[in-house]
């Protein structure tokens, strides 16, 4: 027979054009605006850090899969690319490159491939890499460059503090909220990204733009980001309402730090979040609560990465307890 034989397969014989690869590259597209802002703000440092993280993530995935695990190499599926970008986004722009590479190794090698690769990892790889670096190199990891005027220069920018860092430090040395507020960047600056902080968490606006794109493209559902942010707003709102001298307003909490980056891009990671909408809401409430608790009472100024990792561990349990309602399950069956 010359022509290839007739194909037999079970139904369905059609498939939607939505593929895992397309989902992954949609996430990459959504991260572009935030990346552009960070390049604008941190200049060449942002470029170097992101390139280092992405490059080393891809390289480690290739090396480990090819020579260590000897499985199919999947670096083109986009997941290592995203891990790299998100890892870079969670680091200070001026972090030494070798530390970024160590972080990538932990993210790809330990958090992802040792669990069995894409789809089997329990924790968000980029966050594991970030938290690993934060614990190993606490000084460098909290050395935040401030936005530079001459953003093509390679000279280290003057290090400043993040919005949340200012608040935490200020409260620890007993400053009043009045004096602290004076040091904080304006809400508008936080929205646009003219502030200190991790590479990618600069501009709330750019991140929201990308997040909106993801929701429109149905890569993520609105449940997780909206619930995380709402929970945080309600919690910090209660404290602020109770004692405005000790606590800042919810608006600052939402705009500052990694809240938006975490809520839209890290918590929504398909692999490490629950599968049902009900489960997603529960998961997101957990993240919101833990984040606020760490921010207000913990020793770290920012807690969303810990919160997401902690809730990642609960995902299998959430999947077990929050199942979709089975069709026809409420009514008693009578078999004819």
């Amino acid at each position, binding site marked *: *027979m010359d022509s290839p*034989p*007739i*194909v*037999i397969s*079970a139904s369905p014989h059609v498939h939607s054009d939505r593929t895992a690869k397309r989902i992954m590259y949609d996430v990459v597209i959504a991260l572009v605006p935030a990346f552009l802002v960070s390049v604008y703000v941190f200049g060449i440092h942002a470029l170097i850090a992101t390139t280092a993280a992405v490059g080393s993530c891809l390289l480690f995935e290739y090396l480990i899969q090819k020579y260590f695990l000897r499985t199919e190499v999947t670096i083109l599926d986009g997941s290592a690319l995203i891990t790299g970008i998100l890892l870079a986004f969670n680091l200070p722009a001026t972090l030494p490159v070798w530390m970024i590479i160590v972080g990538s190794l932990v993210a790809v090698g330990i958090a992802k491939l040792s669990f069995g690769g894409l789809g089997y990892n329990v924790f968000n790889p980029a966050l594991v890499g970030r938290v690993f670096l934060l614990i190993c190199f606490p000084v460098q990891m909290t050395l935040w460059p401030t936005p530079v005027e001459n953003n093509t220069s390679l000279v280290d920018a003057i290090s400043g503090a993040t919005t949340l860092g200012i608040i935490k430090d200020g409260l620890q040395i007993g400053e009043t909220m009045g004096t602290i507020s004076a040091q904080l960047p304006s809400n508008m600056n936080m929205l646009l990204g003219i502030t200190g902080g991790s590479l990618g968490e600069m501009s709330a606006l750019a991140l929201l733009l990308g997040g909106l794109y993801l929701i429109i493209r149905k890569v993520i559902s609105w449940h997780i980001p909206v619930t995380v942010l709402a929970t945080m707003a309600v919690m910090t709102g209660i404290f602020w309402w109770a004692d405005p001298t000790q606590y800042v307003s919810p608006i600052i909490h939402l705009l500052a730090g990694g809240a938006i980056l975490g809520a839209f891009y890290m918590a929504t990671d398909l692999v490490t979040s629950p599968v049902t909408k009900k489960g997603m809401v529960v998961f997101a409430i957990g993240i919101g609560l833990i984040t606020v608790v760490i921010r207000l009472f913990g020793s770290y100024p920012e807690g969303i990465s810990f919160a997401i990792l902690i809730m990642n561990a609960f995902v299998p349990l959430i999947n077990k307890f929050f199942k979709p309602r089975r069709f026809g399950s409420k009514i008693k069956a009578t078999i004819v």
Partner: protein
Amino acid sequence: MTDSILNSVFLLTSLGGVTGMVLFIVSKKFYVYEDPLIAEIEDVLPAANCAGCGSPGCKAFAEKLVATEDISGLFCPVGGNEVMKTVSEILGKEVVEQDPTVAVVRCQGGCDVRPKTTEYQGPKSCAISAMIYSGETDCQYGCLGDGDCVAVCKFDAMYMDEATGLPVVITDKCTSCGMCVDACPRDIIEMRPKHKRDLKIFVGCLNEDKGGIAKKACAVACIGCSKCFDVCPKEAITMVNNLAYIDPEYCTLCRKCVPVCPTESIIETNFPKKKVKKVEVDKGIEVKSVNLMNDA
């Protein structure tokens, strides 16, 4: 400094002591009596947990052996007569000796002789593809080639021959546990007596179609011509639905049926080759010595 060391040593020691006590009390209080014979039998059994005996595992089989009065119907196919003899000595119960058996694949329809007419796309599992249709070839009785039998074998006694796409049994490793027999959706694998030197004769085909159709689908199919049936001196061969079957109970391995088969669908293994050649000359029929089972 010393204080803290002493403190921790004291703490750990007392913790260990307390938990040790608790463990001791609990193990005494909730002690369950178990017949020591069960443990003894379990030690004898091969610990393969293959379920070939019908019990879910070796421990369960040991319990069953101890509990049952008459164990003549029970047999561990993996351990064979030796193990059963030891069991009999321990328990003082009669066991029945059984001929050792081995798995044989009753299909020779490799890629070269059984042309593929369609392409299957889906999970690589015989059970699943058998649910959808009759397989990639036009023979709906033969091997599907997705290797469920190989996947289920716990003794590495089977592998897929890449050239033919058919499973092969490594006779020395086969313990005749029967897992592959259950796994095959087409009932192609059969347990047959091993005989001396692993001599076997069996029909390597299950095709029940009429001769012409069977032959068109596969060059080595049994076409139901009854020639073997006619030639068999012991009436060990039965013809049902255009298909010959050699009953191992009556077969004396005389090999008369092998050369008369026009499609070479009767397989003989481990017989000396010389004799086959002689027959070849006698009858003037081209006969290959099929040595499928002993490839490894």
